[in-house]
């Protein structure tokens, strides 16, 4: 069931993504359809479509809806199963071949009852399906995750009603199938089922009806794809693939599936679904992040009962490599390479679900991420930490992946000067877009002034710095730049200054929210969300010089301490050196980039003046054709000037600012080293103190002063506790710093790569623009004569 929560991230694909999805879906659907047809025609073939269809409704429907979805799901699942099970009829449900709808009904009923009666009854196939259901249901309502099982149980109570609709629907489906063409058939089936459900279960029906209708209409037509439909589609694909994937890979043995489902599933699903399964797996591979998410969700473990069972099964199975759900995961793991190591139950489950989710998550955009997903993520992050020892590596990866998702986007916009004269200050609009459930809204905007940003940094560094976290530093205060702005000079340099600062603030905030632990800080949330923030007073004194001093002080302290500290850990020693040399080099490179920018700006002004003189030359020219060409040339050069200017800005923002950021960040890294040193120092001091106390104790013992001896003993105990405490602190800080530095380096590479790609894209664009300009000019030049 944990998987269900993972499911929750509903696919909110961009329009493009949607298209892709649609197309994919269509593809998948076709295959599904075929299967469905097979089902109806021949009992043995598993109706993929049905399964898919079931997830759809489930996703859309909330708790109430869970019933119908579960029913649906059960149906499809069982249908295939049944068809397969025909060979090995285990129970009543299996009794008849799939041809009969009654069989289906029976299956359904049995299924529904199954979960209700005992979780154990949920065989793997059922588990999978349940998972699917659960996952979908949770999407809409985070809280409901646990409920899914219950819902299933509830359903079991209503088996009669359910069965009826199913029968109807199926019969209808049959008719529909026959009547409609293969492609349309599966979808119609679903709709039929759903409709029947609706009719009977009215509370649900209302809600369901709409989505279903949408589904029906949408499903056939990819173009229409509305959110719900899209989501459902995704579900289809994913689920279908997962389900099928499992059988494929697990062919060898589906032990978890009890006698009923075991073999038939494999055969049936394996082949037809193969194609889909591949798709899914590939998607899954693409996004590790999903896996992490899933893991997180697993960690959450909304449904404890089911979980333990499943994971256990899975693992055992995993060992064998047979388990259906696991099989998918295992593939994912292999591809990723990352997760395979993490064999914890939680993770395994998570991974399984991940594979399902991945396609969706890819598409996830701001649209409306399911609340459950976000919660699960955050929860996962928080949960993951405690397990640090064993899972450290995993954690790191997890965190990284979490960041990758960018479930939160912060933008700083609209710098605005408020007030006049020297009391003026700049205020910025801080807009947040997020899918995280820790925030009340998905988007919100607040106004913050520059000192607020600094205040946030102060608070964060005070709180998290000593623990070894690298707190991203904000841009320095700039007296010169700000004074210019205050004086109201509207020249380009002050506009440039404001824009640079705005960008720096934006990146600063984004770095903070990308940090999994900083994001959890209440101050961060307050900063992003709260309408009126209490003024940060202390930061006003934190001018550029003061700020630099602060950082320098930290680094000085570090260098002093290194002399004292006999570094036991080679890793830290090397890292510190690396950081220091990187700092040097970044500074050098920053200067180089800045000079490049200066030259670019110069080129832009020179081009402008050449354009002017070309225009004058053109107007002085007697020869009309030449004159015309020259004035055209002037125009081209004018455009060129803009291009050069853009390029200068591009250089600035792609590299100069990025590198400036990293110079600041390296300072922060050194700060974290410094904090580690401090922790060490404290530990050492405590040890020295303890030593002293022991000596006094010995002296007292010698002097035979029992009254004071007691006191000394107490003190020793106290200091011993302190020493262990400090030692632990030091270990903890060291571990954190280490983790943070690794994270920092990963981020660095990613950041640079992203920037470079952006840069190249814009360069490419400007070259293409250039080509356009020249191509337009060439005929003009040729026309002279």
């Amino acid at each position: 069931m944990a998987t269900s929560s993972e499911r929750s991230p509903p696919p909110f694909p961009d329009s493009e993504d949607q298209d892709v999805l649609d197309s994919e879906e269509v593809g998948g659907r076709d295959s599904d359809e075929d299967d469905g047809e097979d089902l109806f025609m021949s009992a043995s073939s598993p109706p993929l479509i049905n399964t898919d269809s079931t997830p759809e409704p489930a996703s859309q429907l909330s708790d109430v809806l869970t019933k119908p979805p579960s029913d649906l799901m059960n149906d499809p699942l069982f249908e295939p199963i049944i068809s397969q099970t025909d060979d090995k009829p285990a129970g009543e449900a299996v009794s008849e071949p799939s041809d009969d709808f009654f069989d289906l009904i029976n299956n359904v009923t049995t299924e529904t009852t199954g979960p209700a009666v005992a979780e154990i009854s949920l065989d793997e196939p059922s588990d999978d399906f349940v998972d699917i259901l659960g996952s979908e249901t949770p999407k809409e309502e985070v809280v409901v995750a646990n409920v899914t099982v219950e819902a299933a149980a509830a359903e079991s109570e209503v088996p009669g009603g359910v069965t009826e609709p199913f029968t109807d629907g199926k019969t209808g489906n049959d008719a529909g199938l026959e009547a409609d063409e293969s492609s349309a058939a599966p979808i119609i089936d679903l709709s039929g089922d759903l409709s029947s459900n609706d009719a009977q279960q009215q509370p649900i029906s209302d809600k369901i009806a709409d989505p279903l209708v949408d589904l029906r209409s949408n499903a056939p037509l990819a173009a229409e794809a509305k959110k719900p439909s899209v989501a459902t589609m995704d579900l289809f694909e994913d689920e279908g693939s997962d389900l099928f994937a499992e059988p494929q890979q697990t062919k060898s043995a589906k032990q978890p599936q009890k006698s009923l489902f075991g073999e038939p599933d494999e055969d049936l699903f394996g082949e037809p679904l193969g194609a889909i399964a591949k798709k899914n797996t590939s998607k899954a591979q693409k996004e590790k992040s999903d896996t992490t998410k899933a893991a997180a969700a697993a960690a959450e473990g909304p449904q404890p009962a089911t979980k333990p069972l499943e994971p256990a099964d899975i693992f055992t199975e995993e060992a064998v490599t047979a388990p259906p759900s696991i099989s998918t995961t295992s593939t994912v793991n292999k591809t990723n390479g990352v997760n395979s190591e993490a064999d914890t139950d939680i993770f395994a489950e998570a991974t399984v679900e991940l594979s399902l989710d991945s396609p969706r998550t890819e598409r996830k955009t701001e649209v409306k991420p399911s609340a459950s997903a976000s919660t699960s993520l955050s929860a996962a992050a928080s949960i993951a930490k405690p397990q640090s020892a064993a899972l450290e590596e995993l954690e790191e990866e997890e965190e990284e992946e979490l960041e990758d998702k960018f479930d939160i986007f912060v933008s700083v916009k609209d710098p605005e000067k408020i007030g006049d004269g020297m009391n003026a200050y700049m205020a910025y609009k801080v807009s947040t877009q997020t899918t995280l459930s820790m925030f009340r809204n998905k988007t919100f905007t607040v106004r913050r002034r520059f000192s607020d940003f600094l205040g946030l940094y102060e608070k964060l560094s005070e709180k998290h710095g000593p623990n070894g976290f690298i707190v991203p530093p904000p841009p320095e205060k700039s007296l010169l730049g700000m004074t210019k702005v205050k004086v109201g000079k509207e020249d380009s340099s002050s506009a440039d200054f404001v824009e640079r600062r705005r960008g720096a603030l934006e990146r600063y905030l984004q770095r903070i929210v990308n940090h999994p632990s900083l994001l959890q800080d209440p101050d961060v949330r307050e900063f992003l969300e709260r309408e009126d923030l209490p003024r940060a007073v202390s930061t006003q004194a934190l001018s550029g010089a003061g700020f630099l001093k602060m950082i320098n002080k930290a680094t000085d302290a570090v260098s002093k301490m290194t002399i004292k500290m006999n570094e036991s850990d080679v890793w830290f020693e090397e890292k510190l050196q690396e950081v220091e040399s990187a700092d040097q080099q970044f500074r050098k490179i920053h200067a180089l980039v800045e000079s490049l920018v200066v030259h670019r700006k110069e080129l832009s002004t020179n081009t402008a003046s050449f354009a002017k003189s070309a225009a004058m030359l053109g107007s002085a020219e007697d020869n009309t054709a030449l004159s015309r060409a020259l004035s055209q040339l002037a125009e081209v050069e004018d455009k060129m000037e803009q291009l050069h200017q853009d390029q200068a800005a591009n250089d600035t923002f792609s590299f100069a600012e990025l590198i400036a950021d990293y110079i600041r960040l390296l300072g922060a890294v050194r700060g974290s080293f410094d904090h580690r040193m401090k922790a060490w120092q404290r530990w050492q001091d405590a040890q020295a103190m303890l030593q002293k106390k022991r000596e006094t104790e010995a002296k007292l013992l010698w002097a035979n002063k029992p009254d004071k001896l007691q006191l000394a003993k107490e003190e020793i105990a106290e200091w011993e506790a302190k020493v262990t405490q400090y030692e632990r602190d030091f270990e903890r800080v060291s571990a954190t710093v280490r983790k943070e530095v690794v994270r920092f380096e990963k981020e660095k590479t990613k950041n640079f790569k992203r920037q470079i790609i952006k840069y190249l894209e814009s360069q490419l664009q400007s070259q293409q623009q250039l080509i356009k300009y020249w191509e337009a000019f060439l005929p003009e030049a040729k026309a002279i004569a």
Partner: protein
Amino acid sequence: MMEEAKDEASVLSVHGDDIKVTEVLKDGDTLTFLIISKKDRHKPVVSPVFQLSGTGEYHVDRTYDDFEWLQQHLFAQEDVPGIQGVIFPPLPAKPQVNASAKTMKQLGILGLGEWQPYCKAMETFLRQVAAHSVLCRNKAVEVFLTSSAPPGRQKIRKNIFNRLSQAVEEMRKEGHKDVDEFFQTERDRNLVLTSCTKTAAEKFLDMVLTEQKIAVACGHFSAALHLLVEPGEDADKQAFSRVCVKLSEVFESMKKNMTSVAENNMSTLGLGLDLESRHQEAEKEMLFRRTCKLVELESTKRNAEKAKPVKKLAMEEVKKAAETEFEHICRVAKQEITRFEKVRVEMLQQALVQWCEKQLLTAKESADQFNKHLQVFGGMA
């Protein structure tokens, strides 16, 4: 006119179009230019002194002094009627190795690079001389192009066309009202165009210089990026190093691109504008010479009127002579101006077209490269 030019071109034993300044040798402070010209097959070898390589080409080496010698000889053809009406092909300013900033500025675009633009300008000068219907008849041209002995090593007297003396008189006579409407408008136009082309050429030079600076800056950046490469087996580090190396390549290619943009600018429109500006100067000089003659003529006229009967006759003769000379000058000048107009428009057009084409080429190349780099980065993700 054209036919005449053709006939007269045949005076020379080489084809004007085949003259090439192929190389420049730096010897201490002097530059020596290697000039190659193809022998016209229909002409006999004039003298054994003339140096003829096996390929039917004349290879001579000339210094700037030799060029100056040639120009002085062209200026000094006092026996040719109306010689002062000729727009003499402009010789670039004297090149100086390790020149000061000021002289470099005088040289303008020609001072850039390894003197290639300067060679090009010299070549243009020679070609224009050889193609000129009047000037190519001068023996000095033949000698200059074919004789193995450098002709200009002995100092020659600066003649009246010396620019210095001209500058002094210029202010006084520049504003002199012309008697001929045609020349008056031409003079006005020339005045405007001279300053316009000059600024345009200067601005263009600034652009090219900045482009060169950018190229250098890109090169530095590219080199510095290698500093960021961190040794080590760590996968993260290696990933970062790869990014740096790749980025360094990107900037290396940007540098190359910028360099070639600057070079192209220099060799096309840069040279074109420079030549145009020198052309305008040359025309201005010619017009000025004519104006001087006009002033002279007017004063002789006045003198003749005022002259006492005794001297009247002599004065009349002087006046007559001056009048004929002025007429000659005017005739030649009119021809020259029409020819010149055509030449310069053609030249400018060519420069513009070439420039545009080269720009397109480099832009496309670099777009291609960016595309490739982009793909590489995309692949790295």
